[in-house]
């Protein structure tokens, strides 16, 4: 992993289109969830939190799974672009799982009377949040780009393999917990806002990852570009793409 020539300057309207669409879909789905959908039988209006909570959960998991795939590709193929996507996916996953933990606490309070009830899914998310914050810190504290790529890929594989172990250990440790809320267990008037928000957050996640990967790519291009010659001291280092 040495040539920066394999790092073209990022282009294309993908993040803007996906982000705009996702935001619109999320806004419309939340509107329906808040004002159109009926209150749930047992949970009442508190149930409406589910329309943002569950899509966030799915997409946080998806972002970490994508990070795991990126890590494998970095280790096998040694492509810088996957390193950029790895960094992006971890950061977006951290943001989504932090949001998920906050939503989970807000949900738990009226439902069970406590802010945190050690539900295995939510607790696993919290543990993963800290594991991936550690990987972001690792990336921050390693200066050599190719070491940083290899190490964060290794750490991502190791952290991702921990997900089922954490889940089962927390589940056994705190055996009372409630059923999964997927569209199968949720009756039909609740489907539409849930599906809309799920796709909305999915599009937003894609937009975030793609835009964050571009930031990483621009930074990496600067890092990998050769240092400027001594007589060019006041100028910035030329990017390889521009000096052709």
């Amino acid at each position, binding site marked *: 992993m040495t040539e920066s020539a394999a790092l073209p300057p990022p282009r294309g309207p993908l993040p803007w289109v996906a982000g705009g669409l996702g935001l619109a879909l999320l806004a419309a789905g939340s509107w329906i969830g808040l004002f159109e959908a009926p209150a749930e039988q047992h949970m009442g209006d508190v149930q409406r939190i589910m329309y943002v909570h569950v899509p966030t959960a799915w997409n946080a998991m998806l972002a970490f799974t994508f990070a795991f795939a990126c890590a494998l590709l970095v*280790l096998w193929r040694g492509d810088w672009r996957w390193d950029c996507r790895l960094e992006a996916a971890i950061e977006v996953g951290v943001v989504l799982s932090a949001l998920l933990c906050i939503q989970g606490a807000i949900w738990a309070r009226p439902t069970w009377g406590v802010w945190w009830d050690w539900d295995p899914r939510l607790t696993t998310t919290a*543990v*993963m949040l*800290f*594991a991936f*914050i*550690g*990987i972001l*810190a*690792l990336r921050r*504290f*390693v*200066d050599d780009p190719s*070491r940083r790529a*290899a*190490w964060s*890929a*290794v*750490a991502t*594989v*190791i*952290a991702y*393999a*921990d997900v089922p*172990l*954490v889940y*089962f*250990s*927390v589940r*056994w*440790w705190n055996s009372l917990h409630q059923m999964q809320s997927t569209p199968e267990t949720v009756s039909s008037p609740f489907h539409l806002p849930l599906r809309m928000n799920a796709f909305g957050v999915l599009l937003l996640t894609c937009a975030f990852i793609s835009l964050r990967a571009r930031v990483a790519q621009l930074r990496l291009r600067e890092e990998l570009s050769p240092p400027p010659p001594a007589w060019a001291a006041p100028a910035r280092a030329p990017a390889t793409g521009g000096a052709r």
Partner: protein
Amino acid sequence: MSLAAALRKEGLVQWRTRARFLAVLAFGAVTLLLFSFAAGPDAATLRRHAPGFLWLALMLSSTLALAESFQAEFEQRALEGLLLLPASARSLFYGKALVNAAQLALLGTALVPLTVVLYDVSLPRPGALVGVIVLGAAGLSAPGTLYAAMSSQARARQMLLPLLLFPLVVPVLLSAVKGTALLLAGDPMGQLPSWLLLLAAFDAIYWSLCGLLFDRVVEE
């Protein structure tokens, strides 16, 4: 370099730096003492929390022990030399991880008498407790050795190792604490085997995964 040679080297290094082990042991003992101050002098409370405190003390001291494990190599730039030998990075990793596991198991075992004295617990099955400690130490040492190899070459290494290691070993902490609690307080429901199985599964997964990935950590 075979595994035996790597083990001999690590064992020798550990023996020559045994003063360091005593310092880590002292740190663990102080931690146990501090935990008992934090939980108050009520004997029943202390007894109930003893397994958790024992494992937290071991976990906190483990970062000190693990952080040191690559120090010599990097201070004297010996790792490059070691990797130039017709050696596999893998045997180097397993040598280090085994010695670290042994060191942590010894540390944990040495903290048990102190736990008994401070927290007034009884030890109905000391042999089984040592078994749990060995399994837990193995679970801490495999990812810990790998992360120590990374963090000792990074900036802010004091902070990085616990930040990476602690979230990862949550299953070790949970199952080891539960296992220890069941051993100390009795196990009427027969739950001990499933916790030990979880701990052994963690060990198996991470001893193979970390060995597989270690050469990507040290390669230039």
